[in-house]
């Protein structure tokens, strides 16, 4: 029974590791400038976690195999070095390992969250509400019009509560249900929640950030690859949570300009 158990543990451990090693289910290819550090961090952590996992399971299995059902005259032994060696090992190996990970990881984090957006970054506002995202571009004047929560009216497609009649800045604002951005251009995303908590998650961009009602969170990133990607909500926001999504279109500068013209004409 014990030997069977030991074998089971080893089989499970190896079987668990195979999909990871074969990258059967892996994060999609990174399309951002900051994502490389995160990916590196992920794979280093994976290596260390994987080794720890396999080592622990193998040692556990080995000891179960070896020390169950001992001969009647077997003598009890203690692991040489006792607990002191293990404690030192935990501090040295695991402690230093995770602290090193933490320090390098802090750099990757700082890269995303603790740096200001470039001065020429393109501002885009995203408003999350139950259960859709709306994106707003400031238009030619480069200024966002003021928002008025009481004017928000989904039926009249005034998702942001803009008041173009009285507000000059709001007249040329472009509101779209999908997000188009030019490739290799830094985007400064201003995140606003209309009602409850939501989240902005694009796997390929290595970006995830919650919307906080009452706070405007800002985020900046640069996409480096043309394509169409999914933006999904990852913060439970109500019954339609699973269906709350939008598309991110990364376009060449030429295509983006065309898209912008088309959208302007539609407003």
């Amino acid at each position, binding site marked *: 029974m014990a030997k069977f158990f030991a074998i089971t543990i080893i089989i499970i451990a190896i079987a668990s590791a195979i999909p990871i090693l074969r990258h059967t289910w892996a994060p999609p290819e990174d399309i951002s400038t900051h994502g490389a550090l995160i990916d590196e961090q992920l794979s280093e952590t994976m290596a260390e976690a994987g080794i720890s996992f396999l080592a622990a399971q193998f040692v556990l299995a080995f000891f179960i195999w070896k020390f169950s059902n001992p001969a009647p005259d077997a003598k009890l032994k203690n692991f040489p070095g006792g607990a002191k060696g293990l404690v030192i090992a935990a501090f040295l190996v695991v402690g230093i390992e995770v602290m090193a990970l933490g320090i390098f990881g802090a750099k990757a984090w700082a890269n995303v969250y603790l740096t200001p957006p470039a001065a020429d970054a393109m501002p885009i506002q995203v408003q999350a509400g139950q259960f859709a995202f709306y994106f707003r571009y400031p238009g030619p004047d480069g200024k*966002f019009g*003021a*928002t008025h929560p009481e004017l928000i009216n989904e039926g009249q497609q005034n998702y942001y509560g803009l008041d173009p009649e009285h507000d000059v800045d709001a007249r040329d604002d472009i509101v779209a249900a999908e997000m188009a951005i030019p490739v290799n251009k830094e985007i400064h995303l*201003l995140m606003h929640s209309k009602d409850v908590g939501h989240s902005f998650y694009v796997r390929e961009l290595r970006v995830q950030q919650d919307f906080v009602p*009452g*706070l*405007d*969170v800002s985020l900046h990133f640069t996409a480096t690859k043309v394509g169409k990607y999914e933006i999904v909500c990852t913060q439970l926001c109500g019954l339609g949570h699973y269906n709350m999504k939008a598309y991110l279109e990364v376009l060449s500068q030429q295509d983006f300009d065309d898209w912008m013209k088309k959208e302007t004409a539609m407003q």
Partner: protein
Amino acid sequence: MTTAQEHNGIGKDLIVYVCLLALAGVQFVIAYQNIDASQMLTRMLVVACVEAGLAALFFMHLWTEKRGFLLFVAVFTIAVLLGLQYGWTDSYRMVTGAPFSH
């Protein structure tokens, strides 16, 4: 449980009582100082902590209990209280990060 303070008179209690009244008075004086709220808060909290310390040590007799118990209560309470203080930076962001304030 016999504790040392039973053998002293009421004198020590009275002294602590007067000290507490005086410290409470100091808080009221601080309230009328012309300083901004955060400075006022710091000063008042310092006074309040001294007051609480006095009350706990003498009114609640922590001082005359075993030192180990004093440590148990103090470390337990203070450690957990400190843990609660992480959130403050987000409080400041409520002002600077209000919707579309930029």
